[in-house]
């Protein structure tokens, strides 16, 4: 081989002929590969548990399951597997079939040694490029969808500063904040600014995974650990090796999981479900919750020792209603984002609409704001978003006076009553104890209009 493998690349040779298995195994071992052999499909499938294999050399004609059928099965287990078909009986049909089903190449026995060497090198190179490409795409989508953290308010500036400071360390971080306030965004920002940034950040929403599956999700499982566990599977802690694991909604995990989690955090070691082998992983933990963990500790539903392990450094993200000055910035940001995504030339938002958005209470925080803008972008007639494009509930909900003058209090009150009655002038006039003409005059005076 003309180039040294970066790590020990692994090869699985599947052939029913002993001499072929032996000679290929010898040939590749001399090249420094980790090589194992299997005499038939059943043995090959068993060997998948010793993988992952970089390349599988597959004989097409074997007793029992054919190489083509086996290739399909292998791909179900590991979609990224690279297969090279080797056969003594070359036929155009089988070659076409093998390539159609994703084989890297097809060669006939005996193979030219020079050809075989280059074939395997090229297959490895392509595999490496494909996995690099997938990783880069993932990073890119994180960059695109992750967005930068928007906010000029003193509260947000403090959050950003804290995140930057803690990113440089390996400390466990707990991010607190209401639902939709951007906890995962901060976690990703911390990871992206840490020394672990070239390794993955693995996010697990502990609240979204059923309790029974969470253990296998986090620690992985061995083949046969439970019904349906046909093959060994890596857990999130193992995937996060070298990087960061982000445990969202940590407050929802059961007492049993809390004990296991505590042990993993302390030892950085764990065993897969149904296995005995101790696995090591080097990860940093960032967790997030919107629950009152202190109360949970007090009433005994959350372990105190785990709480202290996780609550080393806390970043609190203030709800959007406590930093209303950030709303126009966020609105502009989402406007640009959705204008690009939807390819719609809506590039501005009317001051009245911004005013409504700033005054709304945002129980769903930034997530809600983003959804509102996305929805408004769908409805809006280019080039701008108007109050009518915003969800009706919001328009009706807040008619707070802009200042304390009689006029603005009167305007807000009339607006609220009109909304309440669905702009039924007679009914609104009755409630306001004024006649309809006066109401019409006031509507004209304050420039109110039916949404």
């Amino acid at each position: 081989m003309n180039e040294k493998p970066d790590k020990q690349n692994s090869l699985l040779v599947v052939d029913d002929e002993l001499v072929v298995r032996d000679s290929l195994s010898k040939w590749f071992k001399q090249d420094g590969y980790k090589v194992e052999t299997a005499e038939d499909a059943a043995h090959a499938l068993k060997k998948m548990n010793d993988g992952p294999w970089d390349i599988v050399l597959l004989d097409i004609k074997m007793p029992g399951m054919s190489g083509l059928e086996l290739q399909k099965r292998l791909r179900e287990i590991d979609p990224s597997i690279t297969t090279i078909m080797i056969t003594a009986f070359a036929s155009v049909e089988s070659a076409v079939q093998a390539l159609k089903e994703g084989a890297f190449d097809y060669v006939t026995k005996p193979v030219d040694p020079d050809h075989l060497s280059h074939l395997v090198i090229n297959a490895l190179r392509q595999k490496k490029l494909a996995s690099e490409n997938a990783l880069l795409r993932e990073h890119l989508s994180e960059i695109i969808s992750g967005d930068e953290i928007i906010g000029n308010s003193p509260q947000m500036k403090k959050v950003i500063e804290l995140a930057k400071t803690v990113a440089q360390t390996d400390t466990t971080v707990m991010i607190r904040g209401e639902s939709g306030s951007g906890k995962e965004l901060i976690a990703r920002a911390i990871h992206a600014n840490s020394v672990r940034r070239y390794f993955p950040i693995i996010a697990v929403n502990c609240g979204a995974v059923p309790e029974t599956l969470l253990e296998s999700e986090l620690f992985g499982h061995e083949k046969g650990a439970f019904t349906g566990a046909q093959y060994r599977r890596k857990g999130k802690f193992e995937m996060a090796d070298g990087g960061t694991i982000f445990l969202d909604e940590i407050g929802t995990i059961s007492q049993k999981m809390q004990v296991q989690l505590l042990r993993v955090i302390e030892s950085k070691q764990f065993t897969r479900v149904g296995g005995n082998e101790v696995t090591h992983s080097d990860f940093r933990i960032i967790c997030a919750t919107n629950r009152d963990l202190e109360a949970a500790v007090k009433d005994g539903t959350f372990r105190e020792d785990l709480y202290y392990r996780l609550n080393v450094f806390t970043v609190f993200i203030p709800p959007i209603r406590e930093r209303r000055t950030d709303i126009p910035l966020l609105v502009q940001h989402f406007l640009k984002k959705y204008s690009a995504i939807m390819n719609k030339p809506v590039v501005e938002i009317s001051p009245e609409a911004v005013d409504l958005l700033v005054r709304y209470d945002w129980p769903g925080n930034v997530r809600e704001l983003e959804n509102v803008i996305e929805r408004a972008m769908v409805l809006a007639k280019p080039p701008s978003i108007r109050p009518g494009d915003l969800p009706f509930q919001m328009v009706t909900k807040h008619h707070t006076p802009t200042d304390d003058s009689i006029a603005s209090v009167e305007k807000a009150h009339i607006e609220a009553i009109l909304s309440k009655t669905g702009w039924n002038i007679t009914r609104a006039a009755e409630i306001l104890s004024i006649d309809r003409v006066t109401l019409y005059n006031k509507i004209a005076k304050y420039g109110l209009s039916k949404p």
Partner: protein
Amino acid sequence: MSSICLFAVPPCDESLIKGLIVPLRSIFQVPVEMRLDGTIDPAFAFDVYRNQYNSTSVISAFLQRFPDLDGKILGITSVDFFVPVLTYVFGEAQLDGPVAVVSSHRLDNTLYGLPANQELVMERLLKEAVHELGHTFGLIHCHDYRCVMHTSTTAEDIDVKSERFCPSCEAMVEKKKGPANNHSK
């Protein structure tokens, strides 16, 4: 490890084998001798369909004949070798085992329609002999293109590398030889 024994596997040009003794001694720093007794006739390893000789079978025959040999065996021949899955091999060795074989068949320029060059054949044979013996010392293919353990699948590839080990491969050979052999240096 005490020595390297060279066997002529007929048909073979004995002058080629004699030419290997001194350089192999200098490279491996162990006694190298040419043995005239007990060689293997490769006729049994001939494959009529391929018109080639199975090198793996020749290695097995050597192993059976010398089960207790303390040292390495190198069989040298001019027949065309193959292993079942490959079209040809220049030689074959047992990784970290006692036996290796090499063939001069594909090292000869006349096979490629070029003028004969006996000196070049000798040079290539030495490199392949050192390479296969290197495998018997547990060495795998080397990244350094100048190192004799660099892989070669064509005769031109052999010409690029030297007949010497790179420092790290040499250190491996020394380690395998063990302290008992260091006095021979």
